C-alpha cells in the first residue's frame, strides 16, 4: 500500500527536533498506551496485521497526532474489526453487554512477571524451509517495481533499484501474507544499495543504505 506511512526519502518534514530528555514517557497517557499494547492482544492477530491497521489511519491523523495516540487508535481498530468491542461501545464509553465471552478477566501481573514475560517475548520469526535460496552473498539483484496493494515491507524509495546481497537472514515470516492471516516463511536477505542508486542528489556519494528484503521482492539484476 502506497500509504502515508512509507516515509523514506519523502521531503518537506523539516529539521529533526533533537531532544535530550531521555524519559521513556513524556505524558502519563503514553505509558498507559504502552502498557495496554503489551498486555492486550486479540487472538489470531499478527504483528503485520497490526502494522497494516496503523498504516490505514487517515493521513491527517497519522501525521498530525502523537505517536502513542496512533497506537491507541490501532488497538481500537484491531479490537473492533475482530468483534471484541463495538463502535456502539466506543460511542457509549463502556461495555454494553455483560456477556463478554472472553473467559475470566485477566489477573494482575507483578513487575517480576512482566520482566519475565518481556524476556520470553523474544519472538523468533524464522524457520527452516525446503526451498533452496535463489541468491547468494555478493550477487546483484533488482527490486520489484511495484509494491503489494496491502501490507508490504518493500518501501517505495527502494523499488526498481539495483543492490547487492549483503547477507542471508534466514527464512522469515512473509509480511505481505502475514497481514492477511496467512503465515508462510520466505528467504530474507540483507541488501545493500548505494546512495547514488537511490537518490538523484547522491551521485558522488559513497554512502550505503541497507534493507532487509524478502526473496519475492527481488530478481536477478
Amino acid at each position: 500500500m502506497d500509504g502515508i506511512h512509507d516515509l523514506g526519502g519523502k521531503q518537506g518534514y523539516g529539521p529533526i527536533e533533537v531532544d535530550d530528555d531521555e524519559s521513556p514517557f513524556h505524558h502519563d497517557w503514553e505509558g498507559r498506551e504502552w502498557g495496554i499494547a503489551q498486555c492486550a492482544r486479540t487472538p489470531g492477530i499478527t504483528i503485520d496485521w497490526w502494522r497494516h491497521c496503523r498504516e490505514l489511519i487517515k493521513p491527517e491523523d497519522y501525521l498530525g497526532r502523537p505517536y502513542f495516540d496512533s497506537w491507541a487508535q490501532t488497538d481500537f481498530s484491531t479490537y473492533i474489526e475482530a468483534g471484541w468491542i463495538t463502535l456502539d461501545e466506543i460511542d457509549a464509553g463502556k461495555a454494553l453487554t455483560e456477556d463478554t465471552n472472553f473467559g475470566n478477566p485477566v489477573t494482575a501481573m507483578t513487575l517480576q512477571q512482566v520482566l519475565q514475560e518481556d524476556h520470553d517475548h523474544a519472538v523468533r520469526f524464522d524457520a527452516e524451509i525446503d526451498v533452496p535460496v535463489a541468491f547468494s552473498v555478493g550477487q546483484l539483484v533488482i527490486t520489484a517495481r511495484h509494491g503489494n496493494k496491502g501490507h508490504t515491507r518493500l518501501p517505495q524509495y527502494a523499488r526498481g533499484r539495483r543492490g547487492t546481497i549483503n547477507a542471508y537472514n534466514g527464512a522469515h515470516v512473509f509480511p505481505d501474507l502475514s497481514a492477511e492471516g496467512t503465515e508462510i516463511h520466505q528467504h530474507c536477505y540483507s541488501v545493500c544499495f548505494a546512495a547514488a542508486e537511490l537518490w538523484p542528489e547522491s551521485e558522488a556519494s559513497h554512502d550505503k543504505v541497507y534493507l532487509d528484503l524478502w526473496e519475492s521482492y527481488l530478481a536477478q539484476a
Partner: protein
Amino acid sequence: MPEFDAGKVAEIHQHLHSHLPSESALRVKALETLLVDKGLVNPQTIDAWIEAYTDEIGPKRGARVVAKAWCDAEYKNRLLQDASAAIDELGFLGKATAHLKVVENTDQVHNLVVCTLCSCYPFSILGIAPAWYKAAAYRSRAVRDPRGVLAEFGVAIDEDVEVRVWDSTAELRYLVLPQRPPGSEEMNEEQLVELVSRNSMIGTDRKLGADSKGKG
C-alpha cells in the same frame, strides 16, 4: 478473530476520527476503560509494564553490552556473530531482540539505524524509542540525507568515512557498536558504561568521551 478486512478497518478509522475525543489522554483512557470493562486487560499489569520500561529496561542495558564488548574481545566476537545470544548472556534478550544484529563503527565506517515504514526499535536493549526516532522528519530523512541529519545532532562525519544506514524493514533489529573513546584505556567496565550514550547506539552520536554531549 480478526477477519483481516482492510476495507472495514479504513471505515473504523473514519468512525474513530469523528467519534473519539480529540485529546490523546482521553482517547487512551477510553480504550483502557473499555478493555478493563471487558476483562481483556488488567490495570495493575499496565502499571507493571510502565514500571518495567521506566526503571528496569532502557539504554543502560545497551550501554552495558557495549562496555563489555570494549573490555572483552571474545564477548565482542560473540556479539558480532550472534547478538541475540550475546545479550541473553546478560539477561537482556526480550521484546524485539530475537533477531538482533550489531553493526560496528570504525575509523572508516559510521552506522545509523532507522525504521522508515513504522518505528521498529530494539526495545529490550534500548527501552522506549526517543520521540525524534518516531517522527516523520527522522524517518523520511535518515535514508536520504544521513549526513544532514547527523549534523543536526552535532555530529560531523568526514568525507572519507562511509555512512551505512540500516532501514529496519524486517524483524531484524540493529544496535550500533560505537568506538571506544581514546583516553579510556584505564577505565573499567563500570566506568565505561557511563560513557555510552543512547544516541551512540542508534548512530546519532559518534565521538564518545570527555567532549561527548553526555547522555543525549
